[in-house]
């Protein structure tokens, strides 16, 4: 049964029992029913499992679930509460999603980038997304979407 941890998940306080060797990624997907966060490589290379921990992007495949006790976590499910956010809409409009496997991780990264930089250059966007692999799109439309989202004045982003 393990130990009880409690943390804020997408704005709501949650409690769950976890074992020491359980990874955050698996707890999110299998115990909390949040399958938006993806397993790609399990060794930190692909970024598909990126979530925001206390506001900063981390890899949930290399984070022990125990480690989020008392912290605040945001997953892709936490972004669109009632309607899609600007960044999600520009992804749709630009065709930045093909199979969609990399998308949750990349949107989380885009959120984090736009929080710190209101108007990033293409180079800055590419550098920031270095740890997020996409096997389908070739990145061009992803970069375009983020540039467009940055251009739009948006209180929510």
């Amino acid at each position, binding site marked *: 049964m393990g130990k009880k941890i409690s943390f804020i998940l997408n704005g709501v306080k949650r409690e769950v029992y976890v074992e020491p060797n359980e990874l955050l*990624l698996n707890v999110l997907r299998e115990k909390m029913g949040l399958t938006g966060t993806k397993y790609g490589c*399990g060794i*930190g290379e692909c970024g598909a499992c990126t979530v925001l921990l206390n506001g900063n992007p981390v*890899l949930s495949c*290399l984070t*022990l679930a*125990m480690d989020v006790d008392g912290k605040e976590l945001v997953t892709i499910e936490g972004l669109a509460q009632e309607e899609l956010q600007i960044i999600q809409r520009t992804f749709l409009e630009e065709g930045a999603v093909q199979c969609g496997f990399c998308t949750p991780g990349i949107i989380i990264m885009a959120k984090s980038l736009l929080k710190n930089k209101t108007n990033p250059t293409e180079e800055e966007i590419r550098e920031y997304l270095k740890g997020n692999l996409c096997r389908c799109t070739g990145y061009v439309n992803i970069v375009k979407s983020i540039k467009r989202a940055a251009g739009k004045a948006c209180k929510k982003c």
Partner: protein
Amino acid sequence: MDINKINTRILPVKFQYLAPKTLEEVISFLAEHGEETKVLAGGTDLLVKMKQRLIEPTYILNIKEIKELSFIKSNGNSLNIGATTKLNELENSRIIKEKFIALHEAVKAMGSVQIRNMGTVGGNLCNASPAADLAPPLLVLNSKVKAVSTEGEREIPLNKFFLGPGKTSLKPNELLTEIQIPYLPEDTGTSFLKVARTSMDLAKVNVATVLKLKNGKVENCRIALGSVAPTPLRVCEAEKVLLNSEFTAEKVEETAEKASQEIKPITDVRSTAEYRKEVSKILVRRALQKAYERIKVRECG
């Protein structure tokens, strides 16, 4: 074990997890259970190794929440960095960028935003990978690390710290708490260069240099390389070639040649030993030139 043949989705090992709140608790736990314990900082090296079952500790001791281990502080003659200071905090530090550009360049060349957001400076050193990017700059900067246990504190010069791949001179009951980097004299140049398969990967070869001239002669020269021997290393014979001579293209070439003879690279998945020897020569030359240009730029205002 081949990473492609294992299930990296799970952590297949059982262990007990502890997250003490104070440094005292950490070191008294290590005093008793150091042998069976692995300290967890960012986890970006440790958890990957545990997934491969390369390490199976009985206890995992999370030190992330110990506030006093995370800092960048100037202390008169040196800049001191706490062991659990995150790589991105080093990257964003103004003082590191201004005073130790080689270290700044090394951090920037590491992993991804997420990795730099998780990984720590102490973890990079304690993991003791021959390819650790922070090792060459910290070696040429003559850094020391502080190790603490219930028996007290000791300082270890970084050039005595690395013993082999994954092996350091830390004892099982010791925790690395800080890294101390002595400030350089004003007109000193430093540089860092890395060659990797992709910009996310560990180095095939990395190099850092420190260079100082006096009256047109090289007064001080330190060169360290990574990924070319069982540990990151200073190439002292090569340094001697340049020391006390003028900084000419021929001398630099000779120094680079010597460095390439001094290293002992192996062939692995990242490259062949021959390639590493050849590229080391070129990197040493370029790194020295870069350090030199930095001195010149400063002299011209």
